[in-house]
């Protein structure tokens, strides 16, 4: 490997064959370059008489942003693509964690450059902290094929493996129409939405796009009154009702009974989780002796009400 100073314009950045990182912010690196300069030169390789970048995309893009005209680089003399890529891989492996999408890109490059599939599963997956199964490799390879718009959201929302796996199982059109729903959600809500969609679709043999193009969905998504987060929450509820109709209906009946009982705000009656146990929970709060006495009287009155016995039907 030779070190040399290379004019930036001589690096052919359109060739991304070794690139594994796409979504990053340059701010801190620019600051570091301004303060101490480039300490770790990027790796380049000569292909078809042009220098292409093997490792150090962030560094090179930051240098461009800073308006530098040249930078020190290491030139890898290796001609084999796999060996060249491995230089970049191991350089990064030693110094940082890879994101889910970076792992997907690494595995797709290994495959593309001819690494043996069995070796990828047994050797590289554990290095990337992925359980070594062929099915995991296939999942990551599928992730690397996703549309760049979708990849950006996956990165931005730091989506989990299981969510991305479900997402990658949808069609490109379905993924596109889901993006506005997923953008305002946190990881858990996102996973819930994706899981419910997948499971309703599989159980009822309805394509996801059909669920997403139902009238109620279109009404919610097209509403001008609702904020993006409200739209997502409404959709979540609709999907929950479709996914678990009996449980949702039981919850609704229980809530409607409580409404009829007109409980004071500081008394709450709750069923057991999913109505699985036969007990109910009463929560109340008080600040002094007098309030406690009032609550106890209220509870006695409540227990005497005929409608209250209705809650025992929910056992």
């Amino acid at each position, binding site marked *: 490997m030779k070190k040399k100073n290379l004019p930036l314009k001589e690096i052919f950045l359109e060739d991304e064959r070794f690139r594994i990182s796409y979504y990053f912010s340059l701010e801190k690196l620019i600051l570091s370059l301004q303060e101490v300069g480039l300490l770790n030169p990027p790796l380049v390789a000569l292909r078809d008489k042009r220098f292409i970048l093997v490792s150090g995309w962030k560094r090179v893009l930051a240098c461009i942003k800073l308006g530098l005209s040249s930078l020190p680089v290491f030139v890898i003399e290796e001609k084999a693509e796999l060996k060249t890529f491995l230089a970049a891989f191991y350089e990064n492996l030693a110094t940082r964690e890879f994101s889910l999408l970076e792992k997907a890109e690494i595995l797709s490059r290994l495959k593309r450059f001819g690494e043996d599939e*069995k070796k990828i*599963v*047994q050797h590289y997956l554990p290095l990337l902290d992925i359980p*070594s*199964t*062929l*099915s995991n490799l*296939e999942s990551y390879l599928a992730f690397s094929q996703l549309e760049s718009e979708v990849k950006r959201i996956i990165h931005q929302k730091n989506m989990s493996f*299981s969510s991305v796996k479900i997402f990658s199982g949808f069609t490109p059109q379905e993924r596109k129409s889901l993006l506005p729903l997923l953008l305002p959600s946190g990881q858990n809500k996102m996973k819930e939405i994706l899981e419910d969609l997948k*499971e*309703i679709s*599989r*159980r009822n043999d309805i394509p996801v796009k059909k669920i997403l193009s139902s009238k109620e969905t279109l009404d919610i998504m097209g509403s001008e009154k609702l904020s993006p987060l409200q739209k997502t929450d409404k959709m979540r509820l609709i999907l929950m009702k479709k*996914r*678990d*109709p*009996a*449980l949702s209906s*039981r919850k609704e009946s229980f809530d409607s009974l409580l409404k009829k009982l007109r409980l004071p705000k500081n008394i709450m009656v709750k069923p057991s*989780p*999913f*109505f*699985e*146990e*036969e007990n109910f929970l009463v929560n109340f709060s008080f600040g002094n002796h007098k309030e406690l006495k009032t609550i106890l009287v209220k509870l006695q009155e409540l227990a005497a009400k005929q409608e209250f016995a209705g809650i025992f039907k929910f*056992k």
Partner: protein
Amino acid sequence: MSKSQYFPKKVYVEKRSLDFPLTKRILKNVGPVPREIIDDPQEVIEDIKASKDVMGAGKKYLLITRQRGEFVKPCPCTPRYLGCNYFIINIDLNCPLDCTYCILQHYLTNPLITVHVNREDLWRQLDILLHRKRHRTVRIGTGELGDSLALDHLTENSIDLVSYFRKKRNVIFELKTKTVNIKNILRIEPAPNVVVAWSLNSLRIAKEEEKGAPSVEERIEAARRVSERGFRTGFHFDPIIHHPDWEEGYEEVIKILLKTVDSARIAWISLGSFRFPASLKAIIEERFPKTKIIYDEFIKGKDGKLRYFKPFRLELYKKIVGFIREWGGKEIPLYFCMESEGIWREAMGWIPKGEENLEAYLSSPLG
């Protein structure tokens, strides 16, 4: 996997297991199947793990090794539901059948069909357990981490186990299977404390979700022959699966069962609705992409497992209990596997006073 007897593509024998009599017996019974002596099974296991369908690939190979841990363990019943005080014997691990819902897909880290051949250690551990529990009648069986009879033509386990247990007084031994591999059973003398049991399901579920298993009618026919030979039989409707036309489906099987097998010689019938750890769902989706059984309405139970929403479970149980009673099984002891007291009371009309009470109910004087 064909519905005929299981023969592996290859047998791996761990070097240190080579001299056990059971190893020699298996190698003789397995016939002209390639075999390889290995130092460390882990290498083979790692190799299999590089397959796309690890569980499916593992089922093609038989590993002969030693049990280094305990052969006998209390059944890992689910916390916060009523258990039945059962003990399990882990002689064989894994099963050549490939049921969609099988918990072993989630539970086993070794995907190979594995036989533990250090039989002397098993007898010693059983002697200790039965001595320790000498004031009780212990229920014990081999069908938890594998099918009790699926490998019987190779291991002849049934002959050894029945011969051991027939001499013991304070134990009821159960062989639990979905197969019709009963040749050895029919050759041996019945013992009053041995129950040969079959897992049953609706014809549709058996056909769609129990890959490699004989049909329900074939299983019931095998049960009839075993019953007529003089053994007591048991049946397990577990997992009961909520599916289109489930009522007709389960009634049909119960009718066939009670018309075919002498109900007076049925030791018990257990009922358990489909339940599974959440992490099994992804495995099932991956291995059985066409199945719909995991998309029903499940809730997270008190033990953290997914199970049907309670009103569904109650409906399933009440109907099935009703069918059993209606079609001639009035006197057969019924029990639930891993259910709550509320379900017992509503569907069965009584609640066992703890695990030992249930154990006594199921160990009542042998027929």
